[in-house]
């Protein structure tokens, strides 16, 4: 039925406008309904573009538990003292007021694909014609021996921005002179590939000012990481002797923690640490699993429109999706949201559907006015989202270029949050 309807509607915009109504009346409502779960760079962007571009022709509901959304991107800059927490917080008032999006601050706890409804923690249900899931990440149970959500206050992940990030910053500030900051880095794939290493840079920046004899240990299950050459060059120049990265070859993946004793054991060797930032292995946000669209840790999608392989009426954006060559980043989710919004609008109203184009750029800050970036463009192939072209900052760049790159990242931040929330 769905496929037929989509083909039928795409035959012409004028015909589609008059034919959309019967298709929708069958669903028992005045206009087509889109429910979006998750109000981050994927969900907020998709909701905004669908509502904006359909000019009221599609009823959009956005389900997001937080009234204030704190961006994960730039949260490392808060740890480094470059941003305040308020700088990272954004609210949904404009989406409601300007685009008439029905913003529901609640948890989605169940998706019934047969009746096409979403159940909320409050007990309400929301019917949908198209459902967009953009729930971000959850952590894989038992990924780091000794760590669980019950111990996350002793050993914060700070990988969903907000109270965890503030907690981690407070713990860094309370470190004794010459103390040890440890990080357990995650295995691939994970949200924000340069994120852990930008965080190390920002922690080192803070410690160099406040606690210069402190040490940083990273236990990493990988043998290489995003922007590795750039970060390692920066660490050696700017924070000499402070940072010890223990990769896979040196047992960095063989790790356990004890939150009561505040110890980290790497390949059998136990160290008492003062702060332990555990970033466990990740998987799609739990609602994707509950909707039955995940396969393993992630959700397989059709690259042309971001619809899930398991259900053509459910689309999955950002971190939760198996994104092929794209990294799990806010920029990527925002990029995918626009492709998805265009496709969903086309399917529901017969508007013109243009071919998918994806892009991503990730900026990282190594020290004051010392920014680097990596980026690529992507296209939809039958198999996956495939890389077309890319670039990365170079080692040995001059300070003016690094400063310009940092300023550009601030411009991007202003741009993407406007693209999500304004």
């Amino acid at each position, binding site marked *: 039925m769905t496929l037929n309807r989509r083909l039928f509607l795409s035959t012409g915009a004028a015909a589609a406008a008059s034919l959309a109504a019967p298709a929708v009346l069958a669903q028992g409502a005045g206009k087509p309904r889109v429910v979006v779960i998750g109000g981050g760079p994927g969900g907020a962007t998709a909701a905004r*573009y669908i509502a904006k*571009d359909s000019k009221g022709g599609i009823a959009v509901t956005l389900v997001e538990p937080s009234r204030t959304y704190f961006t994960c991107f730039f949260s490392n800059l808060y740890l480094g003292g470059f941003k305040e927490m308020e700088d990272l917080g954004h609210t949904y008032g404009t989406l409601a007021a300007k685009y008439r999006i029905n913003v529901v601050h609640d948890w989605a706890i169940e998706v019934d694909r047969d009746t096409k409804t979403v159940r909320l923690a409050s007990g309400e249900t929301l019917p949908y014609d198209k459902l967009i899931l953009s729930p971000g990440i959850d952590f894989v149970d038992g990924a780091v021996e000794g760590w669980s959500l019950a111990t996350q206050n002793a050993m914060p992940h700070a990988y969903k921005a907000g109270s965890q990030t503030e907690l981690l910053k407070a713990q860094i500030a309370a470190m004794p002179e010459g103390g040890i900051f440890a990080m357990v880095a995650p295995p691939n794939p994970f949200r924000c590939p340069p994120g852990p290493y930008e965080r190390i840079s920002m922690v080192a920046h803070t410690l160099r000012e406040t606690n210069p004899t402190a040490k940083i240990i990273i236990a990493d299950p990988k043998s290489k990481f995003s922007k590795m050459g750039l970060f390692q060059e920066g660490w050696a120049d700017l924070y000499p002797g402070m940072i010890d990265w223990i990769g896979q070859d040196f047992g960095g993946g063989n790790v356990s923690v004890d939150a009561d004793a505040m110890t980290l054991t790497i390949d059998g060797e136990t160290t008492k640490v003062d702060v332990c930032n555990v970033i466990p292995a990740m998987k799609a946000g739990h609602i994707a699993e509950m909707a039955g669209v995940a396969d393993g840790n992630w959700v397989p999608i059709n690259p042309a429109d971001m619809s899930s392989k398991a259900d053509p009426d459910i689309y999955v954006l950002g971190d939760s999706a198996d994104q092929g060559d794209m990294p799990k980043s806010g*920029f990527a989710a*925002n*990029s995918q949201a*626009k492709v998805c919004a*265009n496709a969903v609008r086309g399917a529901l109203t017969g508007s*013109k559907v*243009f071919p998918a*184009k994806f*892009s991503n*750029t990730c900026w990282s800050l190594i020290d004051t006015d010392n920014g680097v*970036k990596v*980026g*690529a*463009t992507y296209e939809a192939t039958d198999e996956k989202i495939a890389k*077309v*072209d*890319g*670039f990365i900052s170079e080692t040995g760049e001059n300070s003016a270029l690094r400063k310009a790159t940092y*300023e*550009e*990242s*601030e*411009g*991007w931040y*202003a*741009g*993407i949050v*406007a*693209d999500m929330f*304004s």
Partner: protein
Amino acid sequence: MRARPFHATLAACVAANVLWGGTAWCQTGDAKEGAKIFSQCSGCHEIGQGARDRIGPHLNGIFGRPAAAHDGFDYSKSMARAGSDGLTWTVETLDAYIENPRALVSKTRMSFRGLDDPQDRVNLMAYLRNYSDDPSNIPEAEPTARGTDHDLAPEILALVGDAEYGEYLSSECLSCHMADGSAQGIPSITRWPTEDFVVAMHAYKAGLRPHPVMQMMAGRLSDEEIAALAAYFKDLD
């Protein structure tokens, strides 16, 4: 204040005493040096005889003119508001604007991070000052290098962009560039003359303009797609 003729040099003592709290800082601008600095401006602004509005307004007669008062140029809302609030271009206000455009006019479309060096600013103002006394004082020379000097094929420039397609494509640009046209670390791209937009994008595509992100983004846009984007951003408000 209405500017008086200074010819080739500009004494900035009065301005400086206001701006720097009365310190004994006094500089004289060198218009020849200012002409070199103007190369940072000439991608968007023309000055001299026959100068036209491009991405930015032409700068003939800038001294003494209220902000956003030049007829026929489509200013940002922010600049228009500054003008109606009474901002007039004088040595003092231009100095502040050139030092940090966004500090003076927060959502200006002028994509320029500013000149830190006070001497550079005074030199630049001395140069601008040569074109400000009255029309008879404007030298009989061609305008400085136009932003649109190029060898792009006329048929590429003649393409009429599909603004609806441009709107879809624009969503990719708006991950970084502000839809309201403000420049907050990434340049403004709204309301450019079509020719300038097309020329700039093709220069990125050809690798002539040096920015890796823009070279990559422009690199996969077809001539029609560039025209579509130019058409869409031309009227975005």
